[in-house]
């Protein structure tokens, strides 16, 4: 692929076996602390899952890794490059090495499937139309949607939209693919297709994958390593079996889908139930 800029122009600090390293990251929104001393590493060439209850900052973590937001403190390193220190131009260079699959696909609604997949190629390369056509058809064939090339995004099911988005994310052959809740709202067949594609893409192309999800069953068959985040920190990490056997209460509650536990069923700041029923206050 031709590109007008090269990521190697960005200065690297260290090169390790981890493509992403989060070091002692603090991040708050207003007075609400999202991360307080978060540390985790994403090994190169593997599928890493990031799990956690809703609202723990899984998507925020992805936004930190991709440089959409900057941490209040700490380092977010991609291939040794501190993402939070980059200018917009440098960040865009770096993002050519990443692909991201959004929860809803985020396909461009004024273009059909073919043009959506061709979009990053047309924006970043001077390739002739005939070559772009071949690349797009190859990517669509890989996700099983070559026959849907002329459909508009509105004509696609949720699962199909995500597969098109995956083909688009793969169009520029990135080194790392990030999946934000890829299984949400899908039927079992579509879910199975996405699981298969994530594995195929990762190992056939030798890339790194980060999957943010709270679908424990899918993660169990997909991820090589998993992190469980809660309360702004990593509370457990390791293989799926290690997480399943973890002694922490929060890990046990999450992995077994228990309704009550360290994450309470009732939202905390509420007065006593009977006192409130008998009073006039709402």
């Amino acid at each position, binding site marked *: 692929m031709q590109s007008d800029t090269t990521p190697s122009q960005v200065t690297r600090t260290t090169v390790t076996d981890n493509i992403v390293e989060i070091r002692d990251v603090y991040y708050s929104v207003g007075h609400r602390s999202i991360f307080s001393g978060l540390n985790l590493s994403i090994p190169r060439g593997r599928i890493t899952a990031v799990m956690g209850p809703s609202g723990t900052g899984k998507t925020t973590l992805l936004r930190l890794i991709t440089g*959409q937001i900057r941490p209040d403190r700490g380092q977010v390193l991609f291939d040794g490059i501190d993402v939070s220190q980059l200018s917009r131009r440098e960040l865009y260079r770096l993002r050519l090495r990443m*692909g991201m699959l959004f929860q809803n696909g*985020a*396909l461009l609604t004024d273009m059909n499937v073919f043009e959506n997949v061709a979009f990053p190629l047309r924006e970043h390369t001077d390739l002739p139309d005939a070559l772009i056509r071949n690349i797009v058809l190859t990517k669509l064939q890989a996700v099983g949607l070559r026959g849907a090339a002329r459909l508009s995004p509105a004509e696609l099911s949720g699962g199909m939209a995500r597969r098109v988005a995956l083909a688009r994310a793969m169009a520029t052959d990135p080194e790392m693919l990030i999946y934000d809740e890829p299984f949400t709202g899908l039927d079992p067949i579509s879910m199975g297709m996405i699981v298969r594609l994530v594995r195929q893409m990762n190992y056939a192309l030798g890339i790194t994958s980060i999957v943010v999800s709270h679908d424990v069953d899918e993660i169990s068959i997909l991820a090589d390593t998993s992190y469980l985040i809660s309360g702004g920190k990593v509370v457990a990490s390791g293989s799926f079996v290690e997480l399943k056997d973890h002694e922490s209460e929060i890990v046990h509650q999450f992995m077994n889908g228990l309704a009550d536990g360290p994450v309470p069923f009732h939202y905390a700041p509420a007065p006593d139930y009977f006192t409130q029923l008998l009073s006039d206050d709402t």
Partner: protein
Amino acid sequence: MNTFRELFENLREFAVAVGAVTMFLLRMLRHLPRAITRPSLIVEQIYNSGALSLVIIMICGVFIGAVVGLQGYEVLQRFGAEESLGVGAALALLKELGPVVTALLFAGRAGTALASEIGLMRATDQLTAMEMMAVDPVLRVAVPRFLGGAISLPLLAMIFIGIGLYGVQLIAVQQLGVDAASFWSQMRAAVRVDDVTDGLVKSCVFGVVCSLIAVYEGYTAIPTAEGVGRATTRTVVISAVLVLMLNYMLTAVMLR
């Protein structure tokens, strides 16, 4: 004391908003040279903002012209000056009604379409997806739409004025019996090039302002259904108020 504090707070918010819009405009202007190298994107937006607004502009132009014809005739005949209707109508349409009414219609049709389109792109992560593909949404989405709108409005205003004059003569000449030769010859004799350029300058300014407000409101919309709705409403309200305010200021400067 509270009133002063509220007033100060409102003024501060207003200053912040003006600053944010100015920064956004400067960001778009920085991208302008690169955006011009892809004229197909701009032409597409001229079609969306301009061509798709043609019907509403033409219908409104005929009726505004017809009303100007009726009211103008009613007033001028009291002084036996109905032959001058062409001059009065042409000046009113060229200098005031054409640019202002077209801008208000543009804000209502194309402005709301731009704001809601960009706002929905924000709400459905399309703009974030572009950023993740290392494509600057300001360059790819905002600038072509801004340019498309800014170019379309003066063209629409000229069409509105032409159709409006047709509406005036339809009522004055065809229906009320004003002499056609006097109507057109007096108009040709009295209307100067300055009158045309005044209207053109106004519509160019309104084109920039209406497109900027629409694109900015859409781009900064809160990514929810309510947020997009609010951005669309704000586009119409802010554009209408600014158009009327600027029209007064420009008229005052032009008449000096």
